[in-house]
C-alpha cells in the first residue's frame, strides 16, 4: 500500500494544483507579458523605420564645408544645399526654412561637426548628427574608391573562431546554449514553486489535517509524495512557459518580426548536458527539501517567510558573481560557491555551461547535491513528525533531531 499511497499523494497534489487559477495565471503571465512586449517593440520599430524613411525622403538641410571633404553630389542627392555663411544656416533653421544645418570644421578628426536642427524630440533629433557624419563617411568612401580598404578601416572585418580542447574542436557558444537553458529551467522551477514548496507541509499543520493523514501514511512517504508532486508540477510549469513561448516565436518569425536564428547550429554535448541535468535534479531536490523542512518547522507561512528569503538569497547570489567567475574561475570564493550545496546549483551549472568546470568536479557537485538533498529530506521528515501537532509554535530543531526514532 505504501507505493500506491505515495502515488495517491502525488496525483492529489498535482491535480489540485493544476486546477487552481493561480497556477495558470502565474505560469502564463510571463510568456504573455513577453509576447506583448515583443509585439509592441516590433510594431514600434516598424513604425519608427517607416517614419525615418519618410523623413529622409523629404529631408531639407544646409551645409557649410570648411574641410573640403564633403562630396556635394552625395549631400545634394539627399536634400542638402551648400551655403557659405554659417550664421545664415543657423538663421534658416530658426526660421523653419530647413530642418538642419551642418557646419563641417577644417579638421573633422579633431573638431566636431556643428549641427543645428529643429527639435523633433530626444530620439528623433539624434538622426541629424548621424546624417551629418554619414554624409562625411560616404564622401570619404567615394574619395578612396576602394570598398575593401573602406571596410577594413571601418572595422567590419569578418572573423571565424575555432577553439580546441584536448586536441578536439569545441563547439563554442552553440554548445553552451542548452546547458544554459537548464539554469533557466532550474531557476524558473525554484522561484515559481518556492512558495508552494514552503507550504507543502504547512498546509497540513495549518488545517489540522496532520493527525488524520499520519495514521494513513508515514511522514517519509508523505514527504516523498509531496516532493515528487512538486517535481511534476515544475515540469508542467516549464512546459506551460516554454510551449507558448515557442508558438509565439514561430508566429512572430512567420510575420518577419524575429531575428533569424539557425537552430541547426545548436550542439548537444553529452557530458555537460548529463552533468547539467543531474545538477538540475539534485539542486531541485535540495531546494525543495530545504523549503519543505522550513515549512515543517514553522507553525505558519508568515513565520517561515524569513528563512524562505535566506534560501532564495543563496540561490540568487551566484547570479551576480557569474561575470567574476568568468574572469577568476580559480578564485577561492568561486570554488566555495561551486561546492557549497545551496550555492552549487547555479554556480556549478553556469561554470558547466561555460565550459569552465572539469567533468570530475561536476561529478563531485552532483554527489554533494544529492547527498545534501537526502540529508535535508531526512531532517524535514523528522521535523514534520516531531512538530506535526505543534500547531501554534516553532519546533525546537535540536530536540527534534535528538529524539530517537521508533
Amino acid at each position, binding site marked *: 500500500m505504501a507505493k500506491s499511497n505515495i502515488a495517491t499523494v502525488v496525483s492529489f497534489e498535482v491535480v489540485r494544483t493544476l486546477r487552481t487559477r493561480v497556477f495558470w495565471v502565474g505560469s502564463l503571465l510571463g510568456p504573455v507579458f513577453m509576447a506583448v512586449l515583443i509585439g509592441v517593440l516590433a510594431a514600434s520599430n516598424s513604425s519608427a523605420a517607416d517614419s525615418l524613411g519618410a523623413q529622409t525622403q523629404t529631408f531639407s538641410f544646409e551645409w557649410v564645408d570648411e574641410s573640403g571633404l564633403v562630396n556635394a553630389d552625395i549631400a545634394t542627392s539627399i536634400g542638402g544645399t551648400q551655403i557659405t555663411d554659417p550664421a545664415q544656416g543657423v538663421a534658416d533653421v530658426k526660421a523653419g526654412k530647413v530642418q538642419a544645418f551642418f557646419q563641417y570644421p577644417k579638421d573633422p578628426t579633431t573638431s566636431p561637426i556643428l549641427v543645428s536642427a529643429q527639435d523633433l524630440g530626444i530620439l528623433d533629433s539624434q538622426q541629424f548628427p548621424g546624417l551629418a557624419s554619414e554624409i562625411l563617411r560616404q564622401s570619404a568612401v567615394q574619395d578612396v574608391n576602394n570598398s575593401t580598404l573602406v571596410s577594413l578601416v571601418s572595422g567590419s572585418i569578418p572573423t571565424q573562431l575555432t577553439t580546441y580542447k584536448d586536441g578536439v574542436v569545441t563547439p563554442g557558444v552553440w554548445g553552451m546554449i542548452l546547458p544554459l537553458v537548464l539554469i533557466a529551467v532550474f531557476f524558473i522551477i525554484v522561484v515559481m514553486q518556492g512558495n508552494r514548496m514552503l507550504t507543502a507541509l504547512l*498546509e497540513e499543520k495549518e*488545517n489540522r489535517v496532520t493527525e*488524520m493523514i499520519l495514521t494513513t501514511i508515514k511522514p517519509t512517504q508523505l514527504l516523498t509524495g509531496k516532493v515528487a508532486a512538486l517535481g511534476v508540477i515544475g515540469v508542467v510549469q516549464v512546459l506551460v512557459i516554454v510551449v507558448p513561448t515557442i508558438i509565439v516565436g514561430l508566429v512572430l518569425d512567420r510575420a518577419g518580426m524575429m531575428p533569424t536564428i539557425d537552430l541547426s547550429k545548436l550542439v548537444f554535448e553529452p557530458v555537460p548536458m548529463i552533468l547539467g541535468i543531474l545538477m538540475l535534479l539534485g539542486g531541485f531536490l535540495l531546494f525543495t527539501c530545504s523549503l519543505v523542512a522550513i515549512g515543517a518547522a514553522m507553525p505558519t507561512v508568515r513565520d517561515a517567510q524569513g528563512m524562505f528569503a535566506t534560501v532564495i538569497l543563496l540561490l540568487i547570489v551566484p547570479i551576480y558573481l557569474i561575470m567574476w567567475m568568468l574572469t577568476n574561475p580559480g578564485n577561492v570564493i568561486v570554488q566555495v560557491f561551486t561546492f557549497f550545496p545551496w550555492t552549487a546549483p547555479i554556480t556549478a551549472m553556469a561554470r558547466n555551461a561555460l565550459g569552465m568546470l572539469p567533468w570530475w568536479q561536476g561529478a563531485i557537485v552532483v554527489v554533494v547535491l544529492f547527498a545534501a538533498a537526502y540529508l535535508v529530506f531526512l531532517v524535514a521528515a523528522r521535523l514534520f513528525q516531531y512538530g506535526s*501537532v505543534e500547531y501554534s509554535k516553532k519546533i525546537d530543531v535540536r530536540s527534534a533531531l535528538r529524539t530517537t526514532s521508533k
Partner: protein
Amino acid sequence: MNFGATPVIKDLSFDVYPGETFGFLGSNGCGKTTTIRALLGIYIPTAGVLHINGRPFEPSQSGELGYLPEERGLYKKETVLDTMVYFGRLKGMSAADARAWSSSYLDRVGLPTKAKIRLDKLSGGEQQKVQLGVTIMNNPKLLILDEPTKGFDPVNSRLLMSIIEERKAAGATIVIITHQMDDVEKLCDRIILLKDGVKHAYGTVEEVQEQFGGTTVKIEADMPLPSSPSYTILTDEHGHSEIALSPGTAASAVLDDLVRAGITVSSFTPGRRSLESIFVAVYGAKEVD
C-alpha cells in the same frame, strides 16, 4: 513517552478486546491524547508499540483504523468529495469505491448537494459530518475517537452516537478518549483511568466501581450523617447524602447504626458508585472541567 527530559506517560500497557467499547479516561493534561498519538506514531514514542490483532501498527494498515483526533481539520480549499476520495484511497479503497461510498454517506447525513462544494464554504456542523465520514471510511475494525463529542452540536453528537452503535453492532472495536462520564457509562464495556501518566484503574466499569468504593448508598435523612469507620461520606447536602461502604460492611448494619443514632431515615438505596463520583475522587474537583 517523554517530552524532552520529562516523562509524561510511564510504563503504560493495556489491552482492548475485539468488539468491545473501551473508555480511555482522565482529566485534562493527564496524557490521554499523548498516549494515543504515541501509539499511532504521530509522536515518536520513547518506547512501546501498538499491536492490532497481534501485529505492530503501521500506517499502511490504516484501512483497519478510523481515527477522529481531538484537533480536527480537513483540506479547506478542496471539495468535500475530493477530500473524502483522497482519504479513502489512502485507506486502501479504490477511487471508484471511495467515490461511491462518499456519495452514499453524504446522502445519509443530508449533504448530497455539497459534494462539489469547497470545505471552507460549509458550516461548522457540515464540516463535522464530513470529518466523521472520513473517520469511518472503509469500515475500520478499530475506531479511536479522541473527545468525540467535543465541539459537536447536538445533531452531530447524536449522529456520532448512532455511528458508534452501528460500528459496534458490526463488530468493530471502539476506543473512546473522554472525560464525559455519562457517555462512558452508556457506551463502554471496559475503561482505564490515567493520572499523571500512570494507570490508576483498569477493568470493566463494574470492576472499577468496585475498586473505588464498591457499594454506595444514597440516603435521605433529617440531619447530617455522623462520621463512621463503616463508610465514607461522598456527598452530604440538605439531607441528601451518598456514602461508600467500607470493605466488609453490610448496608443493613449501617442503616441500623443510623437509626440507633436517632436519625430519621426516609430513603436508603444501595447501589454502585457513579463513575463521575470516582472521577472526582481520583482527580479532585479542581481538576475536573
